[in-house]
């Protein structure tokens, strides 16, 4: 494995930054990773989300997974919750939509109406 010393330095930088920006997370992102989601390409979607956050150096967004939501026809499904606002469910989120989603909803704070799934 790469050197754990390198990881220690990364940890120090992360802690330094948190001292400047304060605790807490700005948003929560949930990717549906059931068999249906994976078959529809959810792994590529989640990879794109992680890569986008990594490139933008966004540290205060928590990305987790969930199983099948019973909305298989809309997979890949991504849910976004900014602060204590309502959770928004998006359908058909391929990797190509990820940058826009993060830019508009997470950075800009404005949910994207036309990509939402209504139950």
């Amino acid at each position: 494995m790469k050197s754990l010393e390198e990881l220690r330095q990364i940890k120090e930088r992360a802690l330094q930054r948190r001292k400047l920006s304060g605790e807490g997370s700005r948003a929560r992102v949930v990717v549906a990773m059931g068999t249906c989601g994976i078959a529809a390409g959810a792994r590529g979607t989640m990879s794109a989300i992680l890569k986008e956050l990594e490139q933008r150096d966004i540290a205060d967004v928590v990305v987790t997974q969930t199983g099948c939501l019973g909305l298989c026809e809309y997979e890949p499904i991504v849910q976004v919750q900014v602060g204590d606002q309502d959770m928004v469910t998006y359908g058909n989120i391929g990797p190509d939509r990820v940058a826009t989603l993060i830019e508009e909803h997470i950075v800009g704070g404005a949910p994207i109406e036309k990509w939402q799934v209504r139950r």
Partner: protein
Amino acid sequence: MTVFRDLSQHILDIAENSITAGAALLYIDIDEDADADTLSIVIRDNGHGIDANMVRQVTDPWITTRTTRNVGLGIPFLKQTAEMCGGEFEIASIVGQGTTTRAAFQHSHIDRPPLGDVVSTLLCIVVGNPQLDVVYQHQVGAGTFLFDTREIREVLGDEVSLSDPGVLAFIRGALTEGLATIDSEATPGG
């Protein structure tokens, strides 16, 4: 018919079963053995397990433990793929202790899906499930690569999560380099 393009998508799918079963520790072992012409994948968890009756049933495409839909497909798909490729599939489970899923393939079989993007699969499992530790061991011939999230957490402590952008880049780099070192057929991560 196959729903998954590569074996690493199957690994992600089986790992999701472990996560649903409440696993805290997940072992993923891959062995690419060109001499013996086999490729095997073993996924072992310490989740709540399933009873003998359920073990018999899970390979049936019409059985599932989930409640949102009544048809489970992940395990039958992997079994079918293994058996179609001159390999075998088995699942063993002990209630209260965990489940082990093993799929083996003829390495050179024309229909065997490629391993594919193992790095993305591991990143999704590791980052998406903060309560889960993952021990990944990948062998190609005489070379072995070992990745253990417990080592990473020991350094990071409780203060910094695995999804920190710097840590994410570190894990991505460690996995990509490790797989290149053992000359795995896995494609570089996305």
